């Protein structure tokens, strides 16, 4: 039985971006541990598109109650298919779904759990997987090994590249019997509200302009939006700015918010709390604009301007507009 299990999602007939990232991790584990890879799917979705990524088997639980996300029902179904698949290492995305499910699934499977993994390698003759994750707000990295199997592992989003094709492209689908009862759902989703701002998605943007407490208020974001537009990028924010209610939480970049790895990250009026810095370590060039020369953000930035953002952004926007020809 394949020992590496990926909890997958299919979007528009193909594996979602987060599933492809998990498959990269799965391929690495499969090679090192000499195990096969299986994917668990809840509900419909074309399994065939998974086989070209080295997936041997797709275990599927299909029940109408799995159409909408509900943690209790998803957990019952996931536990069932993970057991049917004989999962040894279970990979889940480190996003809001994985954050909701991973630890509880581990409890039910009497498994270990490692979250927000950024690196996987295989150690020594015993071939133990080692998982690296950032801790202490990115001030350190911990290498974690399982003391037992199974182990539930979440991968930090946007850290592993999406998997490329490999293997024979052949696999089999295994239906897993499950009958769910609406009474098993102890909570109910009443509403889902999209807050995503228009334009480029924050996680995909090649340039991100983020604002923090130093902007002094929500109106400061107007200049950031303009700069982001000129750079064809997206606008982010620090926790201070989202907590103040200046911009929606979905714009938060950092440990608790989103991880971004753009070519260019411009932090405006952001002090550089570890919480924030943990979300931008993958950025290629970090620019800090801050009135306080002692702000810790200057410790992580490559380029910096000490000064008032209101004096700096307008000429910066003008110059970029000239360059980008927009």
């Amino acid at each position, binding site marked *: 039985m394949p020992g590496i299990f990926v909890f997958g999602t299919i979007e528009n007939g193909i594996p979602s971006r987060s599933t492809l990232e998990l498959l990269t991790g799965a391929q690495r584990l499969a090679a090192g541990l000499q195990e096969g890879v299986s994917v668990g799917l809840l509900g419909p979705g074309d399994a065939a598109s998974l086989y070209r990524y080295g997936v041997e088997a797709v275990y599927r639980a299909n029940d109408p109650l799995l159409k909408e996300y509900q943690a209790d029902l998803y957990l019952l179904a996931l536990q069932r298919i993970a057991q049917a698949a004989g999962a040894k290492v279970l990979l889940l995305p480190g996003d809001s779904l994985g954050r*909701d499910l991973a630890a*509880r699934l*581990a409890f039910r499977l009497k498994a270990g759990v490692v979250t927000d993994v950024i690196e996987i390698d295989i150690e020594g003759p015993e071939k133990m997987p080692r998982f690296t994750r950032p801790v202490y707000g990115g001030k350190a990295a911990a290498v974690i090994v399982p*003391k037992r199997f199974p182990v539930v592992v979440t991968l930090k989003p946007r850290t592993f590249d999406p998997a490329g094709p490999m293997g024979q492209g052949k696999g089999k689908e295994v239906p897993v019997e499950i009958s769910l009862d609406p009474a098993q759902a102890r909570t109910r989703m009443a509403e*889902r509200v999209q807050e995503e701002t228009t334009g480029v998605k924050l996680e995909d943007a090649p340039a991100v302009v983020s604002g923090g407490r130093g902007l002094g208020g929500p109106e400061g974001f107007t200049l950031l939006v303009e700069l982001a537009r000129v750079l064809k990028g997206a606008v982010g924010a620090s926790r201070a700015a989202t907590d103040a209610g200046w911009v929606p939480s979905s714009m938060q970049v950092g440990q608790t918010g989103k991880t971004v790895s753009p070519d260019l990250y411009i932090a405006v009026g952001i002090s550089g709390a570890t919480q924030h810095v943990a979300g931008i370590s993958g950025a290629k060039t970090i620019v800090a604009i801050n009135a306080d020369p002692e702000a810790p953000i200057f410790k992580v930035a490559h*380029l910096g301007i000490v*000064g008032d953002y209101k004096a*700096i952004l307008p000429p*910066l926007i003008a*110059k970029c507009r000239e360059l980008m020809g927009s």
Partner: protein
Amino acid sequence: MRIVVCVKQIIDPELPASQFRIDASSNRQRPNGHPLVISPYDENALEVALRLKEKVGGTVAVVSAGEPSAISALRKGLAMGADEAALISDPALDGSDAFGLAAALARGIQKLGIPDLVLCGCESGDWADRTVGPILAEALNIPCVSFVAQVDGEDGRLRMRRVVEEGYEVWEGAPPLLLTILSHESNIPRYPKVKDIMTASRRSIPTWSAADLGVEAGDIGKAAIRTEVQQLTLPSRESRCELMDGEPAQQVTTLITKLRERKAI
């Protein structure tokens, strides 16, 4: 409504990286006498609890599983407005992982009497595993909603705003529930009043051992861990920030040149 808030005491997470040291024997941060604080999101959780109590009535208890020093975190909780506090502290808990800590917390909460709501921070300011809260929900066999920014209560039914990538979801559920709390403009932690700090400093807080709570010895401590921290390392990030000189116009011109050299634009 009866609410229990779990709080963790940690070394101040905003300590500059330059003062961060590793203790290789424990694979943890070396305390070095740095200030100890309540993990930030746990304070948001306490604020949510206090506001709910102010709105619908009830009681708030704070519980911590940790070192004896965590008594000061509990005193702060009392000073902020919690009615009751309890510390779970026992050398037998040393080296526990999230499952061990959750087992101890579950017993402590059961001793207080299963409340309507158990609140935890959505992640700790140090290890940020995001696991103790959800595991505690399982150990108590109650439903869990994670990354909740706001809670409203009405007639034994609660509405929770759960933050997700694209925005938020509104979840409904009946108590008992465990929620992990995210910071939000509606739950910025209050500062305790000096008078309340004085009063809290005189309160006696019970300390429970694992045996007091009937925690199975096999469920806690280093022997029970399911994953092990093999190594803790410091990332070798030594970026020197280049500062732009001159007036804003000059600074911007230099910045653009540097960005082009780096092919960043």
